[in-house]
């Protein structure tokens, strides 16, 4: 990635961290035209998914996380976040499955273990 690409992703992330989700998403959408290379980066789709997840746009964020996974199946953050989206939708079976995938990639991932324990508190 170029220095410019890293800088713009940092700016998007900062807006997201500051909970300015719509501003973050607007910058992200406009950046795709300037940096078409973003469409090949799992981190980019994961970040897009996180913003859409925060906006509770579950349909879009699921597509985003799946895009991230299709670029890099070992990018466990996207599996974890996809699990969060399914959790919000009440699809706990799929959420459980994604957290297991995280553990396949990173067997000591405590966030995934904790998520599995929490999912098991529901019917």
């Amino acid at each position, binding site marked *: 990635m170029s220095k410019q690409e890293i800088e713009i992703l940092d700016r998007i992330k900062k807006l997201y961290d500051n909970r300015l989700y719509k501003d973050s998403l607007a910058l992200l959408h406009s950046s795709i035209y300037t940096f078409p290379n973003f469409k090949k980066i799992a981190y980019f789709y994961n970040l897009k998914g996180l913003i859409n997840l925060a906006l509770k746009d579950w349909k879009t964020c699921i597509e985003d996380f799946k895009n991230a996974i299709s670029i890099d199946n070992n990018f466990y953050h996207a599996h974890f976040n996809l699990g969060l989206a399914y959790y919000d939708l009440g699809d706990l079976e799929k959420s459980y499955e994604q957290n297991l995938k995280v553990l*396949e990639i990173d067997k000591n991932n405590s966030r995934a273990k904790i998520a*599995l324990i929490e999912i098991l*508190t529901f019917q």
Partner: protein
Amino acid sequence: MTIINQDIFKDINNNLQDLTSIIDLSKKITDQDVVKIYSKAKSFISKDIIDLNYKKDQIYRRNTIDLNCERHKKIFNRFNVIPKFCFGCFKVVIYMENIMDLIKLSIIFDKYDLLDHVDRKCMINYSDKTNRGYIYCSSIKQCQEIAKKMDFIIKKNIGTNFNLETKRGCSEYSIPFPNYKEIKEDESLMMQYPKEWKIAEDVSDQQNFKDGVPIKRNKRKSTNGFTLSDFLIINKWIMYSKEIDDFSVKDII
């Protein structure tokens, strides 16, 4: 590897589910009952799971309705206004004398069908070291009915060392608005929602939801019976009991 991981968590949880079936709700829950449940549960759980940095410290039992508290708290924290929804949210708060009784209350919250349709939780309020149970209700009538039933149930199954009160909404709202929490016979004397607060709600929704319209999660109902999560939370409470010299759970330690 997938199958092994799946087996670990699901198997442990399945082993724990029926542990509270030794409880006879027609009698008092004894300290010995709790010790038995805890010890048996511990025998199924490996040290690395016990040592997980499990963040949760409140035992919940939930129904399928999402109260959307995350949205309401966000609005309150940013604009210092109480969302309209929260003017119709009431709760029964039960103060237990010690951690042993709090564990017993969590068993009651799990086992009584009459609570099935409401959200409830047990927790330690670390700031004032009180052991509390909360039952969330959607009307004053429901709140008062449940309070009456819980008073009877707790006396029957635990004992008389507890306090019970009914309040409106979340405690933090009552710091800037002390009248908000008060429930009165004549509802018109209770604090009313100032209509101008809707502007803040709309601004927040515009910023935080895709189309500016609040969306709720699809919640699932809590499972019945004891869970791995319950064990890890009780384990935290027991560790905390040492810090505050609460000897009620000394037989577990």
